[in-house]
C-alpha cells in the first residue's frame, strides 16, 4: 500500500491540533508523533482495503480534504464497527504513549514507577468542611 495513503489514514484518525489553548504546545498529528501503519494483521489489511475502495482508491483518499476522509472513515466504522475500533485502538496505543503527545498534554513520559507523583493533602478549608459533616451526627440506620 502507498505510504501517502497509510499516512493519510493515520492523520485522519489523529489529526492533532493547529494550536492549543492556554499556551500548551499543540498535539502533533499521528504521523508527526511517529505513528506508522505497518503490516500487522489480515484484519487491519481488510479495513485499509475497505477505506481505499470507499474513497475511490488510495491516491484519491490521500488527496481528499480532512472532512471527506473523515466521512469515509465514519462510514467504514458504521459498517464494521468492532474491526474498525480494534484497528483504531492499536493506533491509539502508539500515539498516546508517544513522548511528544504526552508532553503536549503536559504529562510525563516513561514508567509510572519508581518516581510516582505528589498529590496535595486536604487543605484547611476542606478539613473545616469535614468537621461540618462530623457535626451532623449518625446517619446510619439501626438494624437488629
Amino acid at each position, binding site marked *: 500500500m502507498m505510504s501517502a495513503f497509510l499516512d493519510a489514514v493515520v492523520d485522519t484518525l489523529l489529526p492533532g491540533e493547529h494550536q492549543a489553548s492556554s499556551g500548551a504546545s499543540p498535539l502533533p498529528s499521528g504521523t508527526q508523533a511517529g505513528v506508522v501503519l505497518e503490516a500487522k494483521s489480515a484484519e487491519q489489511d481488510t479495513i485499509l482495503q475497505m477505506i481505499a475502495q470507499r474513497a475511490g482508491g488510495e491516491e484519491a483518499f490521500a488527496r481528499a480534504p480532512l472532512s471527506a476522509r473523515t466521512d469515509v472513515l465514519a462510514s467504514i466504522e458504521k459498517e464494521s464497527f468492532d474491526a474498525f475500533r480494534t484497528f483504531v485502538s492499536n493506533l491509539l496505543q502508539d500515539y498516546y504513549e508517544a513522548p511528544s*503527545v504526552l508532553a503536549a498534554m503536559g504529562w510525563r513520559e516513561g514508567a509510572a*514507577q519508581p518516581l510516582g507523583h505528589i498529590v496535595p493533602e*486536604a487543605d484547611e478549608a476542606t478539613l473545616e468542611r*469535614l468537621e461540618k459533616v462530623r457535626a451532623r451526627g449518625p446517619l446510619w440506620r439501626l438494624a437488629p
Partner: protein
Amino acid sequence: MRLDPVDIAIVGAGFGGAAFAWRLSQQRPDLRILCVERGGFPDRSALPALRSDWQRAVLNEWATSPNLRLKSGRKSASADYPIDDTQSDFKPLMWNGVGGSTIAWAAHFPRLHPSDFRTRSLDGVGDDWPFSYADLEPYYDLNDAECGVSGLAGDPAYPPKPERAMPPVALGRMGMAAARGFDALGWHWWPVDAAINSRSDAGRAGCNHCGPCLIGCATGAKSSTDLTYWPRALGNGVEIRTHCVVHEVEIEGGQARGIRYHDESGQDILQPAQIVVIAGNGIGTPRLLLASGVDSPALGKNLMFHGAAYARGVFREELDGPVGPVGCALYSHEFYETDEARGFKRGVHLQVTRENALLLQATRLDKPWGEDAQRWLRDEFRHSVAVLVCNEDLPEEHNRVTLTDRIEADGLPGVKLEYRVSEHTRRALDFGLDRAEEMLRAAGAHRTVRIPVAPLTGWHLLGTARMGNDPTTSVTDASGRVHGVADLIIADGSVFPTVGAVNPGSTIGAVALKFADDLARALG
C-alpha cells in the same frame, strides 16, 4: 496420582481463600492445610508500571477483564479462562493467581452498613443475612488490622470504627473540588477507607501516588493478599500449590472427600481431604461446584455485580490528572439508606474516583478518533472529576452463572453469564447520576457527562452460592457449609445473600475469617 490426605484443601488463593487459610492456621496450628491455586505468585519486579509502555498493558495483558486479556494474545500473568458474557450487561472482571482479584483491585475498603444485613426485615426486598453487622464487626476489625487501612475514624455514616492504622490517602485537588461540591449542597462526604498504605506500615512501603493501581502495585503499598494474609499463612505452615487447576470436588455419599486437579505438567492428581473449602470467586466457585455435580437449586443463581454508572465533571481549574490511587479519594453516603420518596428501595453510593491514564481515557471516549475526540481529551485531561454511582443490586434468580457444553482448555466446562440491569437498578442509577451531576456542578464543573451503564465494571462477583437457612433458596448455612454436602465449605464473595451498595472486599475478608473461626470451633 493419589496423594496423602490433608485435613483441609482450599481452592483459590484470592481474598476469601487467603483470609480463611491464615485464620484457620492461626486457630488450629495442628491442621495440615493446603491451598491449590490456578495461577502463580505475582512477580512484582515485572509489573508494567515499571516500564514506559505501561499504558498499553492496561488494554492488553493487564486488562481488568479476563476475556480482554485472552483476546490480546499477549502472555498474561493471570491464569484465565474464557467467560461467555455476551448475555450480560456487565462484563466480569477478575485476576486469577495468588492474591486473586486483590492483585488488580482498587482497594477501596468500605464496610456494609448494618441495614444491609436486614434488607428483607427493613425494606421488604432481598433477604436478611443469617448474621448481623454486630456479629461480623469483630471480623471487620480483624480484617482491617491484617490488611492495613488508611482512613479517618468518626464517619457518621457508620457505627463507630476503631482508629484507622494510617491517615487517609491524599485527597488531591480533585478530591478537594468534590468536597466543595458536597459541602455546598450540605451532603455527607468522607475520605474513604483504603486498604492502601498512606505511609509505610507493617513492612510495606507507602503509596507514592503513581496512579495505575489496577495493573498491580509495584511499591506494595496496595494491600493484596499475596502481601498480607499469604506470607503469614505460609509462616503458620499452610502449603500452597500454584499453577494447579482444580476440576472436580470429589463427593461420595453426600460428603466431600477431596479435590482433583491438573498440575502444571498436566498430571491429574487426586488430593484427599477431610474438609474442602472453595474460594474461587462468584464465577469460579459455581463453575467448579456445578461441574462437580452439586445440585443445590440456588447454585449459580442470583448473580449480583452492583449496578454501576459514571458522571464526569469537567472543570476549568487544573486538577491532578491520573495520579493517586484511582478508586480511593472520598465518597458520599447521603443517599445510602432507603427513602421511599425516591421511587426505589435501598440506596446508592457515590464514589469520587481519580482520572484514568491518558491512553485509557482516549479509548473510553464514545468516538475515540478524529478532531472532536482530541478536543474532548484536551478539555478533560487533568480537568475532570469522575463519580462512580453504585447501587444495591438485588438478588434475582434469572441473573446467573451456568455451564456451557464446551470443555475449555483448563479441563473444566465453559461458563456463561446471564445478567440484565433491572428496572430497580435503572431507577437507582438514574437517581444517583442526577445527584452526582448536581454535586459536580455545585463544585464548579462547567460541563458534565453521563455514562448511564458502564459495562466494564463487573468487579464484584457475588451471590451465586448464597448463605441462608433454607436449602431450597440458599446454598450454604451461616458458616459457609454447603447444605446437603458434608465437609464442603464456601468462603468467598459468592456467599453474599445481598450486596449493599458498596465494594465487597472488606466484607469478603471478614466473612472468611468468621467461617474459619466457625470451623475451628466445630472441629473442637
